[in-house]
């Protein structure tokens, strides 16, 4: 007798068969799609001619109406013009047709809609270290439009569910006339269909990465920056998970996107193919930081309020690799203060003190620095810090209270 011999039950057969079918037809891993094989499937001024695509566009025009004046829309003209110019550079043949909207959502994401309008979350702008990285994400999203991914995915789903519906019906009828029960196979086919839909979605993401790498390289950016984005994201997710004593999510058969690790590796290989040897690439970091400068404090503020200190700290450390400044030091302090574990108050005070040394320290850094000086009994210095806060932000909501403290 062996206690651990697997027993062949209907359930184990189903699960095993499902996994086998899935790995045959889908598989989590895929072979890399080469950038040079990716040609755009739409030209300038594309308009749909098929009924299903027209229906999709009609729906999406209503969605765009809503997106275009949601109150989450960031309307800073400099930033929005900058985004429009960028998509104009890396958008391939449809570059002039794209619309791009920036929404104030502190999350790493961007998306393309079937009619050619893109939505970028503010959390993406916080995470990008230079223009080349942002151009990479925008090129990826444009790739979805250029390869007609939404309508292709829709048609794939329609075809597969049609086949499943007819197949299940025929299995029922065939089974009934032959006197056998084929329900298990129908369930298996259902699972296979679902898995193959997810796999198709992952394949499209890989295509978008490949055509994106091709288009950023054509626009003169270093395609390697696209791979770096994923390296940064993996680090951030690891840091966030470690803080919660968990592990970062790994890929599964039910993912719509390939894993971050796979994307990082494939994009690296793409970049090595697309890079021009010996060329010195300009990553556009100065231009990028200057453009997002006016909204960077808002971006950092939204991030630290997410209550994800592990990820926020990692993010600030990553951004600081390009040099510390008053804004980053202040928000480093905010991460500690809001985390509020033993010793965090001291860490926060040190960060505030470091922040005010920089000329770009935000008004709030002076306020919190003042409070920590006050606690330490250094009243005269505290008053000077508060006075500085009030000159920088005379209309602050707590101005009256601070004035009273200054005395």
């Amino acid at each position: 007798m062996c206690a651990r011999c697997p027993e062949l039950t209907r359930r184990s057969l189903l699960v095993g068969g499902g996994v086998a079918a899935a790995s045959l037809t889908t598989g989590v891993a895929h072979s890399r799609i080469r950038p040079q094989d990716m040609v755009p499937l739409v030209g300038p001024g594309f308009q749909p001619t098929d009924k299903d695509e027209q229906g999709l566009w009609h729906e999406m025009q209503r969605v765009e109406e809503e997106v275009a004046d949601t109150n989450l829309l960031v309307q800073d003209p400099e930033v929005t013009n900058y985004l429009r110019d960028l998509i104009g550079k890396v958008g391939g043949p449809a570059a002039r047709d794209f619309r791009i909207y920036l929404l104030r959502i502190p999350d790493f994401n961007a998306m393309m809609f079937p009619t050619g309008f893109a939505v970028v979350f503010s959390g993406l702008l916080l995470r990008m270290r230079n223009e080349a990285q942002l151009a990479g994400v925008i090129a990826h999203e444009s790739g979805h439009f250029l390869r007609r991914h939404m309508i292709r995915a829709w048609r794939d789903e329609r075809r597969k569910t049609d086949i499943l519906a007819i197949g299940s019906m025929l299995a029922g009828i065939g089974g009934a006339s032959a006197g056998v029960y084929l329900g298990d196979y129908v369930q298996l086919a259902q699972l296979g269909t679902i898995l193959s839909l997810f796999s198709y979605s992952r394949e499209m993401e890989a295509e978008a990465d490949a055509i994106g790498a091709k288009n950023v390289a054509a626009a003169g950016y270093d395609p390697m920056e696209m791979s770096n984005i994923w390296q940064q994201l993996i680090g951030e997710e690891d840091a966030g998970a470690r803080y919660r004593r968990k592990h970062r999510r790994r890929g599964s058969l039910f993912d719509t996107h390939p894993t971050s690790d796979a994307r990082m590796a494939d994009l690296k290989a793409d970049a090595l193919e697309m890079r021009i040897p010996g060329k010195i690439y300009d990553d556009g970091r100065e231009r990028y930081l200057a453009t997002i400068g006016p909204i960077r404090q808002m971006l950092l503020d939204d991030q630290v309020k997410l209550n994800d200190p592990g990820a926020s700290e990692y993010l600030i450390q990553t951004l600081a690799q390009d040099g510390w400044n008053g804004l980053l030091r202040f928000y480093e302090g905010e991460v500690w203060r809001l985390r509020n574990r033993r010793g965090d108050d001291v860490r926060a005070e040190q960060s505030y003190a470091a922040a005010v040394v920089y000329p770009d320290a935000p008004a709030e850094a002076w306020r919190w620095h003042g409070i920590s000086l006050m606690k330490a009994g250094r009243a005269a210095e505290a008053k000077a810090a508060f006075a500085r806060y009030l000159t920088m932000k005379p209309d602050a909501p707590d101005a009256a209270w601070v004035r009273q403290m200054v005395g």
Partner: protein
Amino acid sequence: MRKPVLAFGLAASVALSACVQTQQYADVQFTPPQGDYKLLVLRPDVTVSSLTTGGMDEPRADWTEQARAQIIAALKAQQAGRGGNVTIIEHRNALPGVSEQELADVERLNAVVDQSIVIHKYLGDYLPTKRGKGLDWTLGEDAVRLGQKTGYDYALFLHAEDEVASTGRIALGVLGLAGCIVGFCAPNVGGATQLDYASLVDLKTGEVVWFNVVLASSQVPGIKFGELRTPEGATQMVERLLGRMKPGKYAGHVMTPEPQGTR
């Protein structure tokens, strides 16, 4: 023995195959508008899709536009017989004195309020705080401002989602029916579903005073209950939705305040 059972099953499934449910809710004090009222009807939110063989919704631009036009025509015809002063807005920029943005904001607010009414009153996710209160939802100040700016007494919002079973879906049902011969009887794979709702907002108070839901569906694809893209279907829908407005529970009663104890 098998045949009668089959025949019974078939009869039952055909009987169940198309059903239309309507459910009205009204504010406890609501009386249907009568006489010389001014009613504003906002752009109907319509989607018509084709139901694919596999059971997915494929939105159709041409059918949606047809249906919207038919619904507006049916509404005009229906309201003409009512005596009220009705304006139907077909575009957000068509209301004098109100910006496109303001009207869009009211429409969006109403869309989420209507959705929560459908979820919490109709689909079974009842809220204990709203029990016995009739219809207790409001659009608040935004709707009152709209009323003040335009002089309308009421605003009516309409939402309609309709499906048309594709040839493939109908064929699948026919195949299921054919299976009855060998004992695998499945004609009821699910046909088209239509979900419509309307809400009436009192622009003096901002409150949603009346709400009606129509859910029509057929289990057997191909059985029809009024497609919105046809004039008959649209007229039927408008009639089902707005035909008989019932007053609220305490309408017409004069509410006497409870005597307050004094100590």
